[in-house]
């Protein structure tokens, strides 16, 4: 479904990605692992069109994604939930969700998806009239994911959904990510520091190190890998 081939990307003179190639299959959860500054977020930014690659190709259903604008990429069903959530903190929960469906015209479908989001995240229904900024960290992450679901995505790009959350809340959110993937058939490219949790719900994963893919394997393969165990799992 999504394929990056030899993508090199840079911020000005600083090269952040060197010839990165990876693939996300239909209905799969794929983990993108690595230390801080390895290029995980940059990879997502390239896919969602926020950053133009310097060279290489991003293919999605035969389309050359790297030539398209961010709003066009959203309309193709790729939705990026950025690091730090980036909610509209002074708008209500409901307004945030409505904005998720900004490009859609099917009122009935939007209403159905709103109900669905409220089923996944009942707390959001309760807080629908509150400002997003007044939510707790976990609720904000739920809103960020819910807002992305309102676009009716085929591929979710999730950047550090566990950032700053208590372990229990993190587990809850990962269960919901798994449910979304299985019930809605939405593919997920997951950037996550919590490698153990990430591999639990992923089919396969890539390890980035200073802008290069150094390892690509199935989730079991990565869990068994000596290097991954020592660097990321800590045993």
């Amino acid at each position, binding site marked *: 479904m999504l394929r990056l081939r030899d993508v090199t990307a840079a911020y000005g003179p600083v090269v952040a990605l060197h010839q990165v190639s990876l693939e996300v299959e239909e209905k799969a959860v794929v983990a993108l692992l690595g230390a801080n500054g390895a290029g995980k977020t940059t990879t997502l930014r390239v896919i*969602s069109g*926020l950053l133009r690659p310097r060279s290489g190709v991003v293919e999605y259903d035969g389309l050359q994604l790297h030539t398209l*604008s*961010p*709003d066009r990429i*959203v*309309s193709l069903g790729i*939705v*990026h939930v*950025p690091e730090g959530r*980036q*909610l*509209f*903190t*002074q*708008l209500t929960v409901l*307004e945030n969700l*409505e*904005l*998720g469906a*900004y*490009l859609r015209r099917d009122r009935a479908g939007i209403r159905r998806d709103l109900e669905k989001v409220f089923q996944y995240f009942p707390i959001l229904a309760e807080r629908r009239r509150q400002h997003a900024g007044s939510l707790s960290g976990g609720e904000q992450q739920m809103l960020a994911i819910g*807002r992305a679901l309102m*676009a009716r995505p085929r591929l979710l790009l999730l950047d550090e959904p566990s950032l700053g959350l208590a372990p229990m809340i993190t587990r809850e959110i990962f269960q919901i990510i798994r449910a979304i993937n299985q019930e809605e058939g939405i593919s997920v490219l997951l950037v996550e520091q919590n490698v153990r949790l990430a591999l639990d719900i992923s089919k396969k994963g890539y390890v980035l190190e200073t802008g290069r893919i150094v390892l690509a394997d199935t989730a079991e393969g990565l869990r068994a890998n000596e290097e991954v165990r020592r660097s990321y799992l800590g045993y």
Partner: protein
Amino acid sequence: MEALFLAPPPWEDWSLFGQQVVSGFATGAMYALFALALVLIYRSTDIINFAQSEVAMFGTFAMWSLYLAGLEAWQLIILGVLLGFALGAVVERVVVRPVEGRPHLSIVVVTLGLFLLFNSVATWIWARGELPKHFPSPFSFEGVNLGFTSIPQHHLGLLLVGAGVMVLLVLLFNRTKVGLAMRATAQNPLAAQLMGISVGRMLTLGWALSAALGGLAGVFIAPITFLHPGYMLPVFLYASAAAVLGGLTSPPGAVVGGFVIGIGENLLGTYTPAKWLGPEMKLPLILLVLILILLVRPTGLFGERAVRRV
């Protein structure tokens, strides 16, 4: 006692007092619209648009040419608003867009440059012969009796049109998808982009809408003050005082600020103690009051305290 006031003191002539208050409301409505235009830009681009007054002045002079060509006053209002909309869009696309994302000072300097440009071009084209020029109003300047006082029909028109436009703006921003998208873009452009909102288009729309409001104020104020290249400058000063008073980020604040300044201007102009100060001092006096208020409330009456998370 008589020597203290320019006019009889308020408790001796309630009709005059009432008239000053009501017509203050009317000009206040225009200050409010102009202040709203400034707030609109401030929220999306984080700067005061110094070219606001001159774009409105330029548009109104263009309407004056159409007036000479035989158009009706009400047609000039509609065309003035549309021309403002177009000018705002062009200004954003052509000169603001290239400095978008640069330090705020760069954008401020661009708007100062636009101020000079529009002012010079308007002076060059239109400031010939006798100045100021007469500009028509669709309303008359005959008094309308309100019972306790009477005000010119034109001022009543100002008040009604101003209130109507404010209602339309509320509906636009709170009841429509594009209004929601504009608010979202002003708050968090990155997130707006990730929702599929074309941030550039929203910025253009914001500048266009802002200049349209300026254009409306321009054609409604010209019949009162008459038309010359500097006629919108005091309006800009009053409106920016109103916007600052309201907190710069708050549309309701801009409206309240507009009315306060409009009424304050009239009362100070009428009742300043003539012994010490003439009515010419009303602008500095209003600005003094403004400074005092800001000393007590630095964020204005309705402004959000800037909270930065570290």
